């Protein structure tokens, strides 16, 4: 019996190794696994495994607002602490929280900067983002090829992502400027429809996030990103965002965090914006300049 099963296992192993070998070749040729629907998130997470960031004392984490609106060079130039921007597209607060927990455990930062706005409080959680952080750190670091098999994606999809997935060049600290040439204006400039049915859960998550960071003795710097003046026009819209600001402020400050609100239409004119809340590169510089001035009293 043993000889029969030995031969069977040998032949099976031959095919299994051939498949594994194929994926190893793909990985080495840059056809990376698909972890989430965000090509940038996947790219960033896998690149972090290949070129690990050793120390991070100031961690920027959040959605596209964190990614685009913090000028890395200005932060690095002004603060002598190791800095990295982990921000990525499409993340809601409830997506950010579990990822942040994992990143904080891994890097033990002293400060977390989260640049955010109402857009981070509008959609349901997408648990796919946690596929990465929920995976054992050793596997993540040494065998990112595991993600080819965690969720099935055909080779056709993998090549399609490599060829057509929209990627941006991040700076050495993970940040980027908004350089998209064409966008779907109808989608990006849509009117404020806030709060949504998912806002309450996003607020609860923010509260938990702030409390958890406090427990970890990590200082949260919550940056309320500016919004385009022409986007907030009616008194009702003004009241909505004021309520949002107050809610976030009370949660952040209630857990010992720092709340900084840069929604100032006098400083951030409409011309600095790309859409209703994403700043262009020049807008990012203005925001970071303001932020750096405030951070100097916080980051010692």
């Amino acid at each position, binding site marked *: 019996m043993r000889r029969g099963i030995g031969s069977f296992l040998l032949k099976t192993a031959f095919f299994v190794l*051939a498949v594994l070998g194929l994926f190893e070749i793909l990985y080495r040729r840059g056809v990376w696994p698909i972890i989430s629907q965000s090509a940038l998130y996947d790219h960033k997470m896998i690149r972090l495994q290949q070129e690990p960031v050793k120390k991070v004392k100031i961690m920027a984490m959040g959605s596209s607002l964190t990614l685009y609106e913090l000028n890395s060079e200005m932060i690095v130039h002004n603060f002598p602490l190791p800095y990295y921007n982990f921000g990525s597209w499409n993340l809601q607060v409830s997506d950010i929280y579990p990822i942040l927990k994992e990143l904080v455990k891994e890097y033990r930062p002293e400060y977390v900067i989260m640049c955010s706005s109402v857009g981070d409080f509008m959609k349901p959680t997408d648990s796919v983002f946690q596929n990465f952080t929920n995976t054992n750190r050793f596997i993540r670091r040494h065998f990112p090829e595991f993600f080819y098999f965690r969720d*099935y994606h055909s080779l056709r999809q993998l090549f399609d992502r490599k060829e057509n997935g929209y990627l941006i060049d991040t700076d050495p600290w993970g940040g980027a400027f908004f350089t998209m040439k064409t966008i779907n204006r109808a989608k990006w400039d849509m009117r404020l429809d806030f709060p949504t049915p998912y806002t309450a859960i996003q607020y609860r998550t923010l509260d938990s996030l702030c409390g958890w960071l406090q427990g970890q003795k990590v200082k949260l710097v919550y940056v309320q990103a500016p919004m385009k003046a022409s986007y907030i026009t009616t008194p009702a819209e003004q009241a909505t965002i004021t309520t949002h600001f107050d809610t976030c402020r009370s949660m952040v400050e209630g857990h010992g965090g720092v709340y900084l609100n840069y929604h100032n239409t006098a400083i951030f004119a409409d011309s600095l914006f790309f859409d209703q809340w994403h700043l262009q590169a020049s807008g990012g510089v203005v925001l970071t300049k303001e932020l750096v001035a405030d951070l100097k009293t916080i980051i010692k």
Partner: protein
Amino acid sequence: MLFTTGPFFLFFAAFFLLYWFVFNKSIRWQNLLLLAGSYFFYAWGDGRFLVLLAGSSVLTYLLGILMGRAGVKSIAGTVLLCVGLAQGLGFLLYFKYFTSFLPLGLSFYTFKMMSYLLDIRKGKIQPTRDWVVFFSYLAFFPCLVAGPIDQPGALIPQLEKKRVFNYGQASDGMRQILWGLFKKVVIADNCGVWSGQIFGHYRELPGSALWYGAFLNAIWLYADFSGYSDMAIGYSRLIGFNVTRNFNFPFFARNIADFWRRWHISLTNWMTEYVFTPLAIYFRNYGKAGIVLAIFINFILLGMWHGPHRTFLYFGILHGCYFIPLVLRGTLNKKGRGNGFARMGTFVLVMLTFVIFRSESMHAAVGYYHRLFTTSVVARFYIEDPVFTSIVLACIVLLFAAEWLQRDKQHALQIDGVKWFPVRVLIYACLILLVLTYGPIKNADFIYIKF
């Protein structure tokens, strides 16, 4: 845990090694591992209904023993049988018709449970005293969630014997798994997405697109369910079991009776043995009308087994109607070679019934039929990715060509006749590459898991 997911492959690899290398000392240990593995498989993701499975197993096991003690034909034996059947049918009816959720595999293990009690009653089997054997029979994981529905006389004796690894059986099992994967991932999942889009927008599409959608829908149902069955049989063979064949190339059937001898064979056999045959005997004095009546009741129940939607009921009725000419001409059980036209005609008839099966309501099904036969059948229609679609259509041709050539075999990839190893390796490699390359955008569940 789906057969096509990473966690299942890991689970099965660990189970296989434990089964053949650690728990192979005695039949008792093998069965205990099988039972533990089956319960683990069932509870993966949502363990709420494991209690139902275990509870049903306990009840049926005790009823079987008590029936044996009381005498199967005695009044007490009859009462015990009725209790078992009432429990099985009651749960089936309750969960299928009165709740919005259905415990995984309920339809399948309930039928196994009922056939166990009915076979004891008929004297075909003796009640088993070994609870591990009986529990393993009901929970046998390769067939737990979507069949095949093995009858106790076929599976329990295999559980009572120590399994010894058989190289030929295992390697053929692997081939059948690979063939099932190809059918599921390359063909079923893609056809399911495309036909779903056509069924979802049938009002705006020309008749030609609807015929295309009906064709893809039939292929989807077949490739999905038979692909699942191939994998279930393959995994069973890897651990030393031979389970009931569920499909015998049904789209090559010569007529509708032949189709049902080839499609979902384990359910058809079950219905024939426990529903149709007793009914046919009961109505024997009514001649052909009695047979038609028995067929209708059989198919109505078979349709209703799928769920509470009226579409399933009409699906069963339509199939019952297809039988009438065969009964009237007396060719119900006639075996012959049949010609291409007969096979093609049977396929088209079956394909049309699958339109009802897929539609959300009878209203939608009638609307689909209406457009199928009244709007242009030669109009051009838009296909999103023609190159990829052509590749999948070529794979469908490959599927049918392989199945036609191998129609005398258990499955299309039974190529042990190909003696030269490199050729076999090349065939396997091509199939693996197709599975890896041409899967769908999103992995889909197996359709019959929902029943």
